[in-house]
């Protein structure tokens, strides 16, 4: 899922400073699962904003909505009937949702309430970790199911570098060395001989480096 973190309240208050009528839009997708932008967070944030504005002596009207997904036009369109009554949309979706809002409603600004952090999963209750960089050319079959692009701080395809120490990365003793994980896993699978193969340079044109990407499925297009 896409993992996000709510921006500090101060930053949000500064962003919405010019407005007195706001749509606060949550998303029931990934950001609800990672407890950053779902129905519950919309409720809490709306209340925090109202309290802060009240203290400033400038009350604000907030329309709380939480859409099924903000990355789908069908759901984004659901606020059209009342969007004209508001001055801005504060979206608690990931960056995709904010941009879809901006694309659909051109008369008022769409503001990000979250920092979209990474594509990852829940390691345990309350802890989310990055697992994929969306490089567009998966190599997990070569590296024991552990992603060198994400887990190695230098994205080495032929690691580990000389900074791997006791299974830890040189950037931080809290960070496991991605290549130590890969090697341990290859050993478990009885595939350590794979390590001797040199993995050639990656084609980054399939990644973000090639410009904004698009997946087009003729069979689904109408």
């Amino acid at each position: 899922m896409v993992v996000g973190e709510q921006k500090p309240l101060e930053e949000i208050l500064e962003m919405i400073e010019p407005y007195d009528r706001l749509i606060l839009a949550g998303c029931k997708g990934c950001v609800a699962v990672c407890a950053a932008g779902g129905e519950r967070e919309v409720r809490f944030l709306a209340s925090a904003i109202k309290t802060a504005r009240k203290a400033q002596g400038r009350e604000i009207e907030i329309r709380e909505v939480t859409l099924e997904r903000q990355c789908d036009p069908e759901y984004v369109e659901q606020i059209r009937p009342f969007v004209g009554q508001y001055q801005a949309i504060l979206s608690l979706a990931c960056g995709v949702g904010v941009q879809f809002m901006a694309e659909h409603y051109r008369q008022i600004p769409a503001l990000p309430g979250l920092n979209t952090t990474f594509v990852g999963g829940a390691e345990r209750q309350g802890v989310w970790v990055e697992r994929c960089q969306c490089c567009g050319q998966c190599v997990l079959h070569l590296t024991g199911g552990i992603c060198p692009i994400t887990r190695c701080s230098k994205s080495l395809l032929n690691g580990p570098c000389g900074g791997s120490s006791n299974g830890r990365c040189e950037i931080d003793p809290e960070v496991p060395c991605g290549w130590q994980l890969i090697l341990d896993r290859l050993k478990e699978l009885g595939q350590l001989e794979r390590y001797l193969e040199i993995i050639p340079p990656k084609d980054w044109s399939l990644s973000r480096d090639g410009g904004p990407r698009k997946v087009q499925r003729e069979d689904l297009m109408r």
Partner: protein
Amino acid sequence: MKEGFKSNSRLERILKAGHFAVTGECGPPRGADPEAIRKKGELLKGCVDAVNVTDCQTAVVRMSSLSSCLILKEMGFDPILQMVTRDRNRIAIQSDILGAAALGINNILCLTGDHQKAGDHPQAKNVFDIDSIQMVAAVKAMRDEGKFMNGEELTVRPRLFIGAAENPFADPFEIRHLRLAKKVKAGADFIQTQCIFNVKRFKEWMKRVVDMGLHEKVFILAGITPLKSVGMARYMKNMVPGMDVPDEVIERLKGVPKEKQGEEGVRIAIETIQELKEVEGVHGVHIMAIEWEEKVREIVEGAGLFPRPEI
């Protein structure tokens, strides 16, 4: 270029003549002062066969390696251009390789580079388009096949003696010789290792290297760094990832008065070189006297490696 040689490198000639090689290191200044390079150069003159010039080591901004190499070349040195993939994509790397060769640089050391997180610009965006092993393969293809990384032909081939680094003290230990094997397979002509303080572990690594026959395919230069003080030893042990400074070394430095610790550090360096000279597969030493270049001559002399052969 002589028959049977890959480059005009003095280091290549020394190694192929069977001499025990000595290379040194020069860290460029944090400013545009060419004198800082010349001053270090003066201290290394006559003591080394070639001199490495670091490339923004520890991810701290310094004068560029290539410019510093050129200043040293003007002084008569055979510089080894260190190049990291942290700050350059494949376009910049290949371009700099051509430029270096055109300026008469004969040696390159291909490195991934320290992560910028511990450097002086942790906010920087890193590159890591390719890794050091892929870079070795790229330089080799440019030199031996006259081809860029995309397979297209280049005009005049860069005649570079290709180096890579290896750290026998990083983990996991059991694949460190295999990683060296990958660098050899990619086309490395010489290897310079991380600083050796734990000679026992280095020997264990070398044994695995020799067992694989890698010492016959690549020249291995063992890394030496003289310790200035107990403080420096402790710092390297605790703060530099992948550095192995055994407690015996720290105890030995602690055993002498503070003002004598530098002398003791130099003595340890000399003894280490003498011990390494006897290790099968070690073809030379790479002395990294960090901001202490004035001690290099003493170390080289003490180890019986002075004067350097004329070749």
